[in-house]
Structure formats: structure tokens, C-alpha cells
């Protein structure tokens, strides 16, 4: 493991129990993600993309294997430590946006910083700065339901990045968007990756997303089936 590694996973196995029948979602994966990467995990539905991301993010515990996040072994952390670690080091973007419906755009983006205890004035400045970057500053006072799907996902991107995490994990971020919006969103994410050096890891089976990834990991039946550049896909 080097200082440049954001995630190191060794021998990850995740098996679910489905009414007594074991389901092998992830099978013996070794994987390393390095700082500044903009990597897509691709694979058909049921290939274990989401499970793999959840294990890497510490949202799910592996049945076997170990995961180091920014040099820290997840299994050594208590629930509270892991919770605080996610808050400070990982940003999440979900397929269904998952914004808090009762909070405005500004408040949604502010939420994680509030958990971190960032002072009020600084929070506001950082929120407005990131909203400018994702191009929705004018909607800061609106509720999520007053925005389009693409706009909501931009808010989610802003929320994931505003706390300046070392890693942003996105699970099928464009699954609910049309191809034009998907392309625009990915372009924006890639630009932010280049500007900030923040590491992005996302799952997808969307051609538009694959084309914009710098690295691609192919997952098949819970196993890494190969790594490729977008051109090779």
C-alpha cells in the first residue's frame, strides 16, 4: 500500500443469504484505487457493482477480505468511527439522487458540513462556491422537487464534494437521466476531478459514462473480469 492509494481491497468476498441459499455477490476481488482516478466499474445488472461499491465505502461489511480506506482498515473501526470517517472522507452520489425533500438545495448541500461542525459563514461560502461550479447556484433556495432530474443530480454531486472528501463514490449516477443530461453531468464531474484532484469511482452500464471514464473496471459475476481504457470498451 502506498500513500497514493485511496482504496486497497484484498480478497473481498460478499455472500448474501437468500432464504437459505447463498448468493455470491462479490468473489475474491483484489483492487486498488489511486488518488485522482476517475474510474468506472461496469458490468451487467447483477454483476455485483453496487455491492462492491458498498463494501469499498464501508456501507456493507465483506464476508471475507479486508478494505483499507485512506490507509485505515475498515474492519478495525467502530460503527461511530466509520460513520465519522465516511462523513469526512467519502462523498456519495446515488442513482435516485436521494436528496432530503424537506431541505432546500442550499441546505441539502450544507448538510454534511453541518455534521462536520463547519462554521456557518464558511458553510455558506463553500455551498455557494460548489453550486456555482455545478451550475445551479440560482436554484439554491428551491426544494429538490422543484428541480429536474439532472438538476437534482447536480445538487447530489455538489453535496458529495462540498465537504472536500478524498473519494467520491457514485452508484449509477446517470441511470435516471437522459443521455444528453448524463453526458453533461459526467463532463462536469470530470472537470471537477481535474480541477480538484478528487478521486471518483462510479458504477455504470451507461455508454455515455463509460466513454468519459479514464479507467474502467469490468465486473462479471462478482469478479473483476478485466481493466480497460474507455477506448477499449
Amino acid at each position, binding site marked *: 500500500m502506498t500513500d497514493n492509494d485511496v482504496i486497497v481491497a484484498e480478497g473481498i468476498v460478499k455472500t448474501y443469504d437468500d432464504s437459505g441459499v447463498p448468493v455470491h455477490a462479490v468473489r475474491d476481488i483484489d483492487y486498488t484505487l489511486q488518488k485522482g482516478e476517475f474510474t468506472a466499474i461496469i458490468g451487467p445488472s447483477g454483476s455485483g457493482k453496487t455491492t462492491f461499491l*458498498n463494501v469499498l465505502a464501508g456501507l456493507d461489511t465483506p464476508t471475507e477480505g479486508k478494505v483499507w480506506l485512506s490507509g485505515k482498515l475498515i474492519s478495525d473501526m467502530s460503527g461511530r468511527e466509520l460513520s465519522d470517517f465516511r*462523513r469526512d472522507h467519502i462523498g456519495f452520489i446515488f442513482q435516485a439522487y436521494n436528496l432530503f425533500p424537506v431541505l432546500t438545495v442550499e441546505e441539502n448541500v450544507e448538510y*454534511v458540513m453541518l455534521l462536520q461542525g463547519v462554521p456557518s459563514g464558511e458553510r455558506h461560502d463553500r455551498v455557494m462556491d460548489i453550486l456555482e461550479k455545478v451550475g445551479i447556484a440560482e436554484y439554491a433556495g428551491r426544494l429538490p422537487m422543484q428541480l429536474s432530474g439532472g438538476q437534482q443530480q447536480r445538487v447530489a454531486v455538489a453535496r458529495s464534494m462540498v465537504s472536500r472528501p478524498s473519494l467520491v463514490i457514485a452508484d449509477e449516477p446517470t441511470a435516471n437521466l437522459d443521455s444528453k443530461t448524463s453526458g453533461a453531468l459526467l463532463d462536469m464531474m470530470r472537470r471537477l476531478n481535474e480541477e480538484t484532484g478528487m478521486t471518483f469511482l462510479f458504477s455504470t452500464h451507461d455508454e455515455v459514462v463509460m466513454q468519459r471514464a479514464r479507467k474502467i473496471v469490468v465486473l462479471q459475476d462478482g469478479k473483476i473480469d478485466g481493466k480497460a481504457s474507455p477506448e477499449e470498451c
Partner: protein
Amino acid sequence: MLVKLAWRNVFRQKRRTILPLLTMTGGFFLSSISIGWMDGSYSSIIMFFTNNRTGQIQVHHRGYLENPSIYSTVNDYQAVGALLDSIPGVRVWTPRIYSGVLLAVRPQGAGSGNVFSNSAAASVIGIDPAMEEAATCFSSRIESGEMLSSSAADTFYAATGQIILGRELSIILDASVGDSLVMLSQAADGSSADRMYVIRGIISSGNADIDRNTCYITLSDAQILFALQGKVHEITVMTRSLGTVDKLTDEISAGLVDKDLETDSWKIFAREFYNGMKADESSLKIMIFVIVLVAAMGVLNTILMMVLERRREFGVMKALGTRPGFIIKMIVLEANIMGIISVIAGSILSTAGLLFLSKHGLVMDPPLDYGGTVFREMIASITPECYWIPAICVIITASTVSFLPALKAAHTKAAKALRTI
């Protein structure tokens, strides 16, 4: 942010919020009305019972209540009266003499011989007509005939003697106004106490048990008859308010010069009546408990449903690094916000209901017989208890029943919750 989130969550699905709001408001309203109603009823019953007869405080010779002997007297009742007159909380007081007697009636027109048709054992109470009237409005309960009089100008009755019979006693004796009767007893000096009286009135006190064995003569007659000149057995005290009785009892007790006297409140000398009231209060507590329990079940059900519906949201919160404590606080706060709204709404509704019931009351048809005393109308009273008891019940219920769902939400597995649709 916590308060903001909780407040907005409460109103995000109005239809879902209305159910626990209605349940808690209904619970508050029912509890409040029950307390006001029972408080009002108890106060009415107690005031009726005590004002009608016993008073709220009594002064006796020490031990008289346990052993009501003719010799256990208040020897200087005027001195006690002077003390009572100096205490502002005392509305009025009246002295009484009690004894057991045998009565035999001689109907009008039976001639001058000793022809007695019926007899009965009874209790006689010697009363000061003017003071008794001020204390208990005695004359208002006289069914036929008229009130006793101490006036020297009333020469007829001064000569014949005058007595008032309880209604049921008059039926037993088959006596009516104008009939004569003879009273036989023993005086405090050991001599025979007997005298003829003319029945001046028949009284219906509202308590048939009392009216079945009680008759009344003037205090001065009783003092002469029982050789108790200047003495009485009891001083009955009427207070201005039921709430000050305990304090006044202590005050009177402390002010008494004669340490052979004791002062008791109605809770002591009407112990059975008081215990009956306490038993009724217990039934009120059970009723409130049932109301709270029903409301709690409704609120628990709704909050559990709400937690289940928002499972994905809690998963997102957990994924973003929200600590379980934050989620617990948020849900308990949401329930408490609903609780506070219910308390406000319930207070408004209860005030309207209590105002109506305190003004108009409810006519008891048939009348309520409470220990022989008949009540024809009950009114509610508005006391602080009508508000703070239901308010505390609602807030405690909201906090308690929301805690379990909150705990469940706080320990949502993020990965699992995010898979839910």
C-alpha cells in the same frame, strides 16, 4: 438543522401527520374534560355535602369524634367563635349540641292525656337558628312548616317548645306540623332530660339516611334540656374555599387557647365520604391511563409507519455520516413537535368544552345518589390540572412511543436501506 429537519418532516406528509395529531389532541381533550368534569363534580359534591351539614372544619373536645360523649364539650365556644371571626378564610361558623333521644308523638286532637301513637329513637341536634341559617341555609330545606326561632317575641313556641323533624323520621312517627311530641333522654348532670315540643317544621336535607333519625331544637333549648349551659359539642366552620381547608385547619388549631380542643377537616370527620372521593379519583386515573394508552398505540403505529416509509432516507443519512444519536433526536423531536401542536389544539378545544360544561353543566336524570345525598346537576371546573396533566401525558407519550421507532431508524443498515425502493 435538527429542529429545521424535524419541523419540516412533520408537515411534509400532512395526511400522515394528521392521524397522530388527531389521536393526541383527542387524548388531551378527553383527559382534560374528564379531569375538569371530575374536579367540578368532586368540588360540587364536597361543597354540597359539607355546606349542607358538616361544614369543612369542625372543632370538638379532644376525642369527641371517636367517642361522642355528652360530656365531651367545648366549654367556651364564644372564645373559639371570636378566634374564628378573626380568621379571614372563615366564612361563617355555627355551634351545635348532639344527643340521642327517644321521641313519642301525640297527634293534634288527641286531647291532653298521655296518648302517644308512635315512638322512635333519634338524634337531636341543638342549633342556633340564626347562625345555622347563615351557615347551611337551613330554612331552604324545610318542606313544610317553618324554621326554628330564638326570638323572645315568639311566645307561643317559647312556651310549648319547638322542634323540626327530618322528613323520613316524621313518616316513621306519622307526625306532621302542629303535632306534639315528647323527648326523653339524659342530661349531662345525670338528671332526666324530658320535654314536650310542638313540631314546627319538617325538613328534607337531601340525605334520606340523616332525615330518617334526626330532629332539631334550638341551641338554648338543648343547653337547658341537657344541662349544658354555655357549652356545645361542636363548632362547625364554613370556609370560603375548599382549597384552603387544610391551611385553615392548621391555623385554627394553632390559635386555640384550650388545648383540650381539636380541629379537624372534613377529610377526617367525614372519612368515609373522603375515601369514597379518593376511590373515585383512582377510577379517574385509570380512565386517563386508558385514554393515554389508546392514544399511545395510535401514535406508535403512525411513527412506526413513518419510519418504515423513510427507511431509504435514513440509509442516506447514515451513508453521509450521520450519527445514530442525530436520527434518534430528530424522530423524537418530530413526535414532540406533534405533541406540542396537539397540546395547543387540545387546550383550545378543552377550554371551549370546559367553559360550556362549567356554565351549563349536565342535568343528572335520574339524579345521582351519592351516599344518600342526591345531586341533580353536575358542572365542570377549569383548573390548572385540566391542562398540565394531559400536557405531560401527551409529551411523555410522544417521547416514549417515538423512542423505539427512532432506535430502529438510527440503526438502519445503510446498504440495505439504499436498496429499498
